[in-house]
């Protein structure tokens, strides 16, 4: 049984770092207050914090443990929810895994268990946003032939979105830039990787780009049936938060003279 005062484990923000933290939290047998990589989560007076170094071998052992003792579905949940934008996601995943190591496969039917509920919520939230942003991403062609898209999701979605876009846009090198989390996915025509970015210096847009944007907005405006106008419904399905990156809602591309 864990004992002593509860501790906060801090790690470097990588997936392997998180798995290492799970390993250590088990090995050290102390009650866990939180696991986090977020600097803004501050400790209270007398709160003990432990910084953990990422350890690949420990990470692999935890990964194998999840797969064997709980199952592939649980590992998938962890791999997806790891990118959640919710503050408590690391702690929630840790508690979910603890429950999983106790319950084994039975965790999949333990749909009313509080730790399972929390992780299910994270999963629903992130996959729903992933579905949305897959659609709400707009690429622009730059004069060097590279395509660029800027997104601002609430979850850290770039790592989850890259395989999707690489699969269908393999004909063009592109950059998928998350301005909220300062992370960009780069596809160079062969493979893809992630880079941390703050600002980016982008080349100019290609000559035909403005024309495509104008035509897209023209289509967008023309396809709505005026007699059915329903702003509330539109906003419910496509929250305003996402509008800033949508070409079709940018008044600068309104049809000329209409």
């Amino acid at each position, binding site marked *: 049984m864990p004992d002593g005062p509860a501790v906060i484990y801090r790690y470097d923000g990588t997936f392997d770092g998180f798995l290492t933290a799970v390993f250590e939290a088990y090995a050290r047998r102390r009650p866990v207050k939180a696991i986090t990589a977020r600097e803004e989560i501050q400790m209270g007076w007398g709160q003990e914090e432990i910084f953990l170094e990422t350890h690949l071998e420990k990470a692999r052992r935890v990964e194998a443990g999840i797969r064997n003792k709980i199952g592939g579905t649980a590992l998938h949940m962890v791999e997806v929810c790891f990118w959640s934008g919710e503050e408590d996601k690391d702690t929630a995943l840790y508690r979910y895994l603890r429950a999983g190591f106790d319950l084994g496969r039975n965790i999949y039917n333990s749909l009313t268990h509080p730790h399972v509920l929390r992780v299910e919520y994270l999963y629903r939230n992130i996959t729903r946003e992933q579905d949305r942003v897959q659609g709400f991403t707009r690429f622009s062609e730059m004069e060097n032939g590279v395509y660029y898209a800027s997104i601002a999701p609430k979850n850290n979605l770039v790592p989850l979105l890259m395989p999707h876009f690489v699969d269908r846009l393999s004909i063009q090198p592109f950059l998928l830039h998350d301005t909220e989390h300062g992370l960009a996915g780069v596809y160079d025509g062969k493979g893809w990787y992630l880079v941390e970015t703050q600002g980016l210096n982008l080349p100019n847009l290609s000559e035909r780009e403005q024309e495509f944007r104008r035509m897209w907005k023209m289509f967008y405006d023309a396809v709505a*049936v005026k007699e059915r106008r329903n702003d509330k419904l539109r906003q419910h399905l496509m929250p305003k938060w996402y509008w800033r990156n949508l070409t079709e809602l940018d008044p600068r591309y309104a049809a000329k003279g209409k």
Partner: protein
Amino acid sequence: MDLGDKLQILTEGAKYDVACTSSGVDRSGVKGRLGGAKVAGICHSFAADGRCISLLKVLLSNQCSYNCAYCVNRRSADVQRTTFTPRELAELTYGFYRRNYIEGLFLSSGVLKNPDYTMEQMIECLRLLREEYGFRGYIHAKVIPGSSRELIYRMGLLADRLSVNLELPSEVSLNQLAPDKPRENIFRPMAAIATGIEQNRHELVRYQHAPSFAPAGSSTQMVIGATPDTDYQIIRLAESLYQKYKHRRVFFSAYVPVAGSELTPPGYQPPLLREHRLYQADWLLRFYGFRADEILDESHPYLDSLLDPKESWALSHLEYFPVEVNTADRAMLLRVPGIGVTSAERILRARRQTRLDFDHLQKLRVVMKRAQYFITCSGKMLPGVRFDRDGIYRNLTLEARRRQGLLFEPEVTQLSLFDGGKPLLAGREDVVKCLTGQL
């Protein structure tokens, strides 16, 4: 005329077709080629009317030799006419797709000269996209009524989904309003598509590399409100279309009057709530194991405006309720208002682990506001809830009024003309699903 003007005119002519989905087929990408498809479909945007934009929905041409009374493109309509060249449209689709504006193309057309000529032009556009540009995104193509079997077959080898719109629910209406389109000209292509899909299934079993024919199946659409057909006739017809032609979807489109047409009385508003109720009934047919004649019958030919069709059914069949959630089978769980396909599945899984109480049901995302009147946990109803028809009716409709506001506001006055009540909103999920047409 520049390409932008063409795009505008040919979008205006296509927008009343409500099929918006890009669902039904999974196709992964191939390196060096553009595009793929996801079985659930992807909405890329939502238009000002709240409808999902998934495909570049345009006409190849808005010239039409026919004169269907309900249609913006009919021969006698006073609109500017234009036609895309197959290459213009293929390039536009390709350019839109690589910017992630769309999942693919939804191509329809007026009857340019004659049905077969139109089909050849459409097929040429699709051929360019698929063969010359190597495009692997989604394509939904409308078969022109009256076109030859051979052309339908060629189109089906290029498209993911084929559709022929029935448009009008009955033969009488069709004869009156679409005099150039005899009923066989619609049903014959539907049958040809169904046969094509069926044969292709066998071929694919025998040879893995047989080309696939309309792998995302077929669909059709009916206009609602332009003719006196009842809801009962409409859902019966939908049911038979699913059975006979194996349609993946039957879409309903509240009729929006077109300029110069006199089909509708003055003050007519598109019947959006009625359309919505029909989608809910359609949902019951497709996913909840209902038959059309359980939902409505000759003596009750219209769907209730205050209750959704499942609530209506439950209230007139209280003999089946309350249902014990710890023992009821899947089919019965699905009959409970407030329990959907997902929550029924979750109940079945969770009760292998624990005996369920009301607190659990909330966590399993059962909509308790509606379900509470129809269920027991371990033999008991939720404390304070009475099983009495009038009370349930009052409460369910009360909730409905409180929840209104997301949809259908403009038609409150119109509705009250015939029922004196206020429209009900379905669960938000249902609304989204109905409107985005996914699943």
